[in-house]
């Protein structure tokens, strides 16, 4: 290499070294900060060790005055489809005062809904003064409180306190509280039958994934099926079944994938001729056999759909397809469950964001025939907060929408059906009555029945009585035709 060729290299090297030393000397460079766990100064989380005497207190007030007809036995009704099958003559028009208010009751702050059977209304309230989960039994016809059973359990308000709907049979009422305490009581007398503390029974201490109660507290509503009380606690067990009359453990499914309890509820489904319990946990979706021959057997699972927070429960679309929903913009997944002999497999076949197709932030959509109805969440673009309808063949293009001039609160209020009537309660307290025909809805009546704050609880419809609530007040409306 000649000196003519080496000179530029030497000059370049010199310039570069000058720049480098200037850069080092002046300290002008990137200020790099590591983002690592622990920068929020959170101390080591200690699992709750408080001892809760579940169901310890009881107070009797009155015998029921009149046994009104109608039932709504659990979250989304007996068939878990949110459709009342009773023959109700619904008033199609309301006068200026709206549907008549039959009774009102003050509640602790929360979103717990009602279960109804044999003229009694059951609500798992939270009494803020006594710091207690409180199962309250009311007369359906008058709203008179008949009895209450409660237990002290302290926790901090975090979007209210109460969340779940009890399950009631002729004999028992089953509840699960915000901190995963289970209570089974006599449905008539309120006598305590058995209790469980799922946090204690299934929690794995010092393991973040071994926590039972999820963030914002438990929203899973209990399930009773064929004399069994069924829960999906996470921690040590994916799912557990207790004998309803005794509380004895019948079976439990080991939790090998460290899935956690979400805010959804267990949904019984029959897929490819097999009856199963489907649960959308934090960490995945799975199905457990509900048939006597192999009950408690894990049939399938998928971890390919894993939103951070899940509230709306999965629904079965038919043809082996399940819709699973996520919150905070996660969107929706379609899961295909296939059967080959005794073997089931699940595959996520479609995912979309809330602005790309059907979505549910809080309340589970309703499927009627081949149509699915939902109120779209706030993050679903032009459809936000609208009532929309999709055909099961295309879950991305709605067949009907309520339109940009008819949106509902923040899109997080409940909706319920009877026959071809749909009641929609927006989270600001407006009640709407729609007539549903195939994939179309017609607004029949509307009225602001509550000056509501966060009317997020599921509604209950039994006979002519529609029970709804906001964060603090429960009201019972007569939605039947009057002479």
């Amino acid at each position, binding site marked *: 290499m000649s000196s003519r060729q080496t000179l530029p290299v030497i000059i370049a090297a010199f310039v570069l070294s000058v720049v480098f030393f200037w850069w080092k000397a002046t300290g002008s460079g990137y200020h790099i*900060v*590591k*983002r*690592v*766990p*622990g*920068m*929020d*100064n*959170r*101390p080591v*989380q200690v699992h709750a060790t408080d001892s809760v005497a579940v169901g310890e207190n009881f107070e009797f007030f009155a015998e029921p005055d009149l046994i009104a007809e109608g039932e709504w036995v659990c979250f989304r009704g007996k068939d878990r489809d949110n459709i009342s099958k009773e023959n109700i003559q619904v008033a199609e028009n309301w006068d200026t005062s709206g549907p008549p208010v039959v009774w009102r009751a003050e509640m602790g702050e929360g979103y717990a809904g009602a279960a109804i059977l044999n003229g009694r209304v059951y609500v798992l309230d939270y009494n803020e003064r006594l710091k207690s989960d409180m199962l309250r039994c009311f007369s359906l016809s008058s709203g008179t409180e008949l009895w209450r059973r409660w237990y002290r359990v302290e926790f*901090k308000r*975090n*979007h209210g306190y109460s969340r779940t709907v009890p399950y009631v049979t002729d004999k028992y009422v089953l509840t699960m509280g915000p901190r995963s305490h289970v209570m089974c009581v006599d449905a008539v007398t309120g006598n305590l039958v058995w209790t469980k503390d799922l946090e204690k029974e299934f929690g794995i201490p010092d393991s*973040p994934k071994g926590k039972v109660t999820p*963030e*914002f507290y438990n929203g899973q509503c209990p399930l009773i099926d064929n004399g069994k009380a069924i829960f999906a606690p996470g921690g040590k067990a994916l799912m557990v079944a207790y004998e309803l009359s005794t509380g004895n453990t019948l079976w439990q499914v080991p939790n090998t994938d460290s899935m956690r309890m979400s805010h959804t509820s267990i949904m019984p489904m029959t897929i490819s001729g097999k009856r199963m319990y489907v649960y959308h946990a934090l960490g995945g979706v799975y199905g457990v056999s509900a048939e006597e021959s192999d009950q408690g057997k894990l049939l399938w699972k998928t971890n390919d759909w*894993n*939103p*951070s*927070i899940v509230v709306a429960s999965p629904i079965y679309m038919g043809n082996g397809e399940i819709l699973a929903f*996520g*919150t*905070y*913009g*996660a969107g929706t997944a379609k899961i295909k469950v296939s059967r080959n002999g005794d073997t089931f497999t699940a595959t996520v076949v479609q995912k979309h964001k809330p602005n790309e197709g059907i979505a549910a*932030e*809080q309340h589970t959509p309703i499927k009627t025939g081949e149509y699915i109805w939902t109120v779209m*969440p*706030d*993050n679903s673009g032009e459809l936000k907060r609208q009532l929309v309808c999709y055909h099961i063949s295309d879950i991305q293009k709605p067949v009907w929408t309520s339109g940009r*001039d*008819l949106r509902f*609160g923040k899109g*997080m209020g409940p909706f319920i059906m009877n026959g071809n009537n749909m009641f929609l309660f927006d989270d*600001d*307290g*407006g009640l709407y009555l729609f007539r549903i025909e195939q994939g179309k809805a017609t607004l029949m009546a*509307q009225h*602001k029945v509550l000056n509501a704050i966060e009317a997020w609880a599921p509604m209950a419809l039994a006979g002519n009585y529609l029970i709804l609530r906001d964060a603090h007040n429960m009201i019972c409306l007569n939605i039947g035709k009057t002479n």
Partner: protein
Amino acid sequence: MEKRENNIKSRREFFRKAGRITLAVPLLSIPALLAKKAYSEVYVWQIDPYKCTACGLCKTSCVLTPSAVKCTNAYEMCGYCDFCPGFLRQGARAYDTGAENQLCPVGAIKRKFVEEPYFEYTIDEELCDACGKCVQACSDFGNGSLHLQIMHGLCVNCNQCRIARVCPSDAIKRVPADVPYMSKDLNKSITRKGAAQTKKTES
């Protein structure tokens, strides 16, 4: 007699003083009023947080890099949640400050432990580039306390704001310079909900 003269003197003195004050007050206040009027006639750009959809155009359309728009937190609306959707990304493996769990691409949101299960969230404005990801996530289901605002220490107050020209929701507006921010607050949110409801009922 002497007492009477003294009284007259002090009365004169009183009227003289009162007259001076009566003349001086309006004369002195005129410049102040004029200055105030002139100042209030100066307008600056601001984002209406109730119209903003956090589309992300504030990040890319501002003439400044990084944008003069920054995220801000309305503390009275904030839930101080452990799972803050504005702080943690979807599918976060743990609810902590690990980079892999955070939603903000530049780590501009900081959180500080208050008590279980509550955290205080603050914004490092130097890092925030107005992408709006946290704002959208917070309003999806959360309380909607995170919102975008134009920071007047940075904004050069262009005659035609480039963000205003592209904003799809028409959220950028001119506001008086003496009330330059349109922060979210709890009362305003409730009133707006009520107004929306009234409008709906009327229709």
